[in-house]
Structure formats: structure tokens, C-alpha cells
């Protein structure tokens, strides 16, 4: 049974790119394309989800992601409630299921969930009543599917819908990155010609080639050659010095995206980054602000893609019986 789809193949929850068929991903991008027009209207919202209540439940703080979900929900005319629940309050004895039961008592229709533990979104989706939809806004190292879809949307805008002719390289901390995992699943589902990961061995998870279906490179000089899309990952501060990497200085020296390294890629390659960027650590400012960078576009697209996902997975009373 696929938790994410109903018996007619429509979205019920949006938890993970893995397990979703290609046509659903394409439908999300097509719908997002339509929603991106809403932003150009004089009144930047549509009444689609009027009367629906969406709760952003963030167990892990992230103002940026929460804000884009909030804006997306508001542009759909839904009522939005933001809850930041520190895990310390959870450790005071209230279990996650207790917390959820409280939120359900507020008659919410959708939970947008972020949590530091892998698998939490799926866990919550298994325990909500049938009329509640769950959107994963990032769980541990597992998945960040809306980020992956806005990246796919951005790639499609620039490179067209035939992913088969594309070479895409993801550079950086693959091991700890839920973004990378979801991007790789999405790229492979969309039949991308070649998906590469480039990272030092300390930042690659076990059996990565076999587990995720990627080509593995350790140095950008080899991996960036002729790629059409470069996705730089954020290097978390706490990983910058210690047993994983000696220093941010050394990381930039060998893995940072500079003009020289960018020149190895295809001439019309685009540079992406899920943000927030560490200038001078994973990417040179000249590249981040350069012509080939589409980093700010990604942010804009994030709203339309999240509107699409929310609208598509919001349960209607008419489909409740079927679901």
C-alpha cells in the first residue's frame, strides 16, 4: 500500500519522492506552473482552500521553510497556524502522538511537518484521521520532497521537460542531506540522463551508488565535467570542523564552486543551491551572484510548488469515502 496515494493514484500525503510515480511529479510541476501565474495577478491569491486550516508543525526551527509554506497556504486562502514545538517540551513527557491529538482537536485539515528524526512525517501520516493530509517539510536525513520538486521545477524551466538529456551533479554533504536524497529520487524518477554526487568520502553515506542510483565522484574536477545542472548543498556549521572535515577553508579549497570549476561544466549550466548559502565555504560569491546562478529563482518557485502540493493533497470531503 502506498501511503501517499489514494486508490485513484491521487496524492493523499506528500512525504517522500520515493514511491511516487513519474506522472505525479509531472502533475505537480504542471500545477505549480499554473500557480506561478497567481503571483503575477493583481491579487496574489486564489480562493481554492478557503475555509481549510493548515497547521505548520515545526519540531525543528526553520524560519525560511516555514515562511514559504505559510505564504503558499495564504495564497491558497487557507487559514494558517504556526507551531514551533521544541523537542525539549516533547521530552517533558508529552509524546508525539499526544501532540498530534491536540492539534487534531483544533479541526485542522493539513499538517505541514518538520522534524529532526527520519521517518517522522510517515509516522504522523499513519496516525492522523483520514481527512487530514500530511506534508513533509523535512524529516531528519530522510526526505525534503517539496524542496526537491521546486528544484525539478527550476530545472525544467531552464532545461525543458526532457530530463533524459541532462547531466546533473549534486555537490557536498550527501550523508546528512535530506535535500540530496529527495533530489536524487526525483531526478531518477524523471529519468535524468546521469545523476552524479561529488563529495569527500566522509560525507557520503554507505552504499550510496547502489542505494540511490548515482554515479560517485570525489573531486569536482572529475565530476563537474560537462554537467548541465550543478546543485550545491549547504554545509552545516557543525560539520565544518571535526572528524568529517578538517576545516571550512580546506573544504572550499577542494570542493567549493569557483568560476574555474564552473567552467568545467557545460557552457549553459545552471547553478542551484537550496539555501541559505555559505559564501566562501561551498560556493564563491562570484558564482552565487553570477549569470548562471538560479538560486533566487528557486526561492520564488518554492511558493508555487508548495501551493501545488498543498492543493493536490488537501482532502476534499467528496473523496473521503474513497480514500
Amino acid at each position, binding site marked *: 500500500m502506498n501511503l501517499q496515494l489514494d486508490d485513484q493514484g491521487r496524492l493523499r500525503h506528500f512525504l517522500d519522492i520515493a514511491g511516487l510515480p513519474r506522472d505525479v511529479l509531472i502533475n505537480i510541476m504542471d500545477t505549480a506552473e499554473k500557480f506561478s501565474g497567481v503571483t503575477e495577478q493583481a491579487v496574489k491569491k486564489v480562493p481554492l482552500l478557503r475555509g481549510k486550516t493548515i497547521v505548520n508543525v515545526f519540531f525543528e526551527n526553520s524560519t525560511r521553510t516555514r515562511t514559504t509554506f505559510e505564504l503558499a497556504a495564504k495564497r491558497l486562502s487557507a487559514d494558517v497556524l504556526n507551531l514551533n514545538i521544541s523537542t525539549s517540551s516533547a521530552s517533558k513527557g508529552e509524546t508525539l502522538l499526544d501532540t498530534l491529538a491536540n492539534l487534531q482537536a483544533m479541526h485542522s485539515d493539513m499538517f505541514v511537518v518538520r522534524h529532526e528524526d527520519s*521517518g517522522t512525517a510517515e509516522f504522523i501520516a499513519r496516525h492522523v484521521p483520514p481527512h487530514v493530509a500530511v506534508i513533509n517539510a523535512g524529516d531528519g536525513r530522510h526526505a525534503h520532497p517539496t524542496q526537491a520538486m521546486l528544484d525539478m521545477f527550476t530545472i525544467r524551466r531552464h532545461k525543458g521537460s526532457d530530463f533524459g538529456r541532462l547531466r546533473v551533479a549534486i555537490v557536498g554533504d550527501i550523508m546528512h542531506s535530506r535535500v540530496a536524497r529527495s533530489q536524487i529520487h526525483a531526478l531518477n524518477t524523471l529519468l535524468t540522463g546521469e545523476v552524479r554526487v561529488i563529495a569527500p568520502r566522509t560525507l557520503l553515506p554507505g552504499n550510496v551508488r547502489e*542505494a540511490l542510483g548515482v554515479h560517485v565522484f570525489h573531486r569536482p574536477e572529475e565530476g563537474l565535467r560537462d554537467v548541465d545542472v550543478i546543485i550545491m548543498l549547504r554545509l552545516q556549521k557543525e560539520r565544518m570542523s571535526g572528524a568529517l572535515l578538517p576545516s571550512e577553508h580546506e573544504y572550499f579549497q577542494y570542493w567549493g564552486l569557483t568560476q574555474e570549476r564552473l567552467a568545467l561544466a557545460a557552457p549553459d549550466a545552471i547553478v542551484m543551491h537550496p539555501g541559505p548559502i555559505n559564501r566562501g565555504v561551498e560556493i564563491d560569491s562570484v558564482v552565487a551572484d553570477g549569470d548562471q546562478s538560479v538560486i533566487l529563482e528557486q526561492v520564488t518557485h518554492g511558493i508555487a510548488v508548495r501551493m501545488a502540493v498543498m492543493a493536490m493533497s488537501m482532502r476534499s470531503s467528496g473523496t473521503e469515502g474513497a480514500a
Partner: protein
Amino acid sequence: MRRTLEIRGGRVIDPANRLDAITNVYIVGSKIAGIGTPPEGFKSRNVIDASGKVVCPGFVDLAARLREPGLEHKGSIASETRAAAASGITTLCVPPDTNPAIDAPPEVALIRRLAKRAGYAWVVSLGALTRGLDGEMLSDMGILKDAGVVGVSNAMRPIKSTMVLRRAMEYAATFKLPIHVYPLEPWLSERGSVHEGVVSTRLGLPGIPEAAETTEIARLLTLAEHTGCRVHFCRLSTRKGVKMIARAKADGLRVSADVAAHQLHLTETDIDGFNTYAHVMPPLRTTQDRDGLREGVADGTITCICSDHQPHEADAKLRPFMQTEPGISGLETLLPLTLSLVESGVLKMSQAISRLTAGPAQVLGTGVGSLEVGAVADLCVFDPEMDWRLTPEAMLSRGHNTPFMGLELRGQVCHTVHEGRISFARKPLLEEH
């Protein structure tokens, strides 16, 4: 007139005595009084018809958490030994990580007393290797031995340094106490909850590499040789680990090893979908590892199959995967999971029974696990062909946390005899209606 019991017409298998024959077992009082031929003047007051069944020594389970003292919301000695009796188990060994830890005679005595009162099985204890399992200061091993512990262990808690480990092993060897070790190098397994491999990478769960087991086995084997301490390796999980133990045994080192029954069946793919019931420690590993463990059980590198019983309350598993407590409620699946290796041709029946009786009994050294005239009458009668379904209603353990829930299993205990008394009897089918 003394209490007597006759177990009639069963296939009696006692690997310790190389016995495998259809015969009768006669019990007088708490002892076995005859096998094949009744003792003089024997009058049977009770008869178990064992035709078509297997009669064997009561099973000896090297690792079962009974949760008492300290975690009675998960289980008690009474509740869990009752479940053990229904599973054909007559001797259980508890690790020292109760609360408080078993690091002084009162805890040893308490456990023995509670087990005696429940009357379902012998319960023996491992003592703590370090005080309060803190990994730093040696426990009173001499006193613990006199109190009756069968070995010492630090359970899954880390030892502060290799020097502390060395001293602890030397001191244990002084009292000829075997040390039961969980070979999981603490730094390599830090924060990990599953096998580091394809599935952990896909699910984004922090992994425990195979090397966490093999480096720790290497360290312990070296120290075993150096200190002369007898080492029992608990819950092997990797093929390479099995090979290392086999080589050490061939080199003449006095080491032994066990495996949890579920490790012989499940693999890392069973955690797909974040299945918290398959969250165990050491983690489920690859198909190659599982096959390596099976080979180790078959060739005698691994001489014991244990339940690794860890009952939990429902809430312990109703959380995001990494927050759940590891462990399976395993008593009631120990026999069927072992028998299924016979059915699939991995083990002969006598080998399977040996891994549940003579093998673990030898590690404990308490003189159970065999059928001899004059020995304490601990026996199990089971139907190797009986199919049944594991359901919450059918389980006697307070913990219902098992990935085998709802599955059809083959092989069911009919009667368990402990100290000459019937400690468990499944009602005959005809009387069920």
C-alpha cells in the same frame, strides 16, 4: 506416594547424550527416573501422550530481559517466565542491565526469589562487569560469583577504555567467571540505529557499520588471549564476525557465541517503511550476513540460539523510528523460528535442539539442558508440524512488540515440565470447543 509423570511414545531427542529415539521418559519427584525403562516399582500417576511429538530437554535461553526490577511496566519475572514456560523454556539467563543493575548480591537474590515464587523456570543472572555498569570501576565480582551469577557482562553499555576492559577481564578470569560481551564498538555505532548500508542510506537513518562489530570482536579476541578470560560473544550479526570467531576457535581460544533467533530470518530490508518492530540491537544486516549467521549455527561456530527477549509497552514502539526502543518480544517465537531452519534444510533436528539446549547450557555451566537419569526433570514436548498464527491474544508475554505478529508459524509447544511439574500444558484440541 511421590509425584510421578510418564511421557509416553515421543521422539526423545537429547543432543548432549546423542539420543534420538522413540521412547518413554519417566519422572519421579523433580528428577528424571528413567528413559526407555521405568525405574523399579514405577507407577504412573500422570501421563503425557507424546506420540508424534518431540520430547527434549527444556530450552535454555541465554538472553531474556524480564524487566524486573525496574521496568515492571514492560514485564515482570512472573509474566515473562510464564511466557517462557509456554515456549518450552525452562532456564533463562538475564543480562545485568536491570534497574538497579545486578551488581550486588541483593539483586541476584531478588531475581532468584521472584523466579522461584513464580515457579515457571530457572532464572540465572549475569552480574555487572563494572559498578552500576558505569564502564569505569570493577564490580565486586568475587562476591557476585558467590551470590550465584553465571558470568559477568556490561550488557550494551560501553567500557570507558581498553585498559578498564583488560583489567575487568583479568579480574573475571581470576574467579573463572566468563564474560558475556556485546561486540559493538561504541564509537563506530554512536547514534546509529540500523545497519549502515543500502536501506539506511535510502531512509536517511544513522547507520552502524559492519566494522563496529568486527573491530570490537578483534579487540576482545586479542584481550581474551592476553588475559585468559573466557569470552562469550552475544548476538553476532555479521558474516565476518562469525568467520573471526571460527578462526579463533580453530586457534584454540576458549570462546563461544550466540545469535538471536530473529537475526537468522530478518534483514535490513525489514525496516523499510520505518518498521519500528524491526528495530533491534545489534541491527538487522544484509542477506549475506544472515546467511553467514546460518552457516555459523550449522557448522557449530555459533552454539546457541537465544530469544534476545525484550518486551516493551506499546508506546515504546509508537514513535519516530530513532526514538523507539530496540528489541523484540522473542520468547514465543524462539522455537518456531529455530525449527524453520530445520524445514529449510539449514539444520538437522538434533542440531536445532542442541542450539536451544546443550549449547547454551554449556555456556552457563549450571548442569541443565540434557536428559539423564538423576538429572532435574526440565523437559519440553512440542509438535514440530503444528501450524499456528502469532496474535496478540495468543501471546503470554506482556510485550507484543514483534515483527512476526500475524504470521503463520510452524512448531508449537504442547507441554513444558519444570522440576518434574507440568509448568505449561496446551489444552488438547478436542477440548477447545
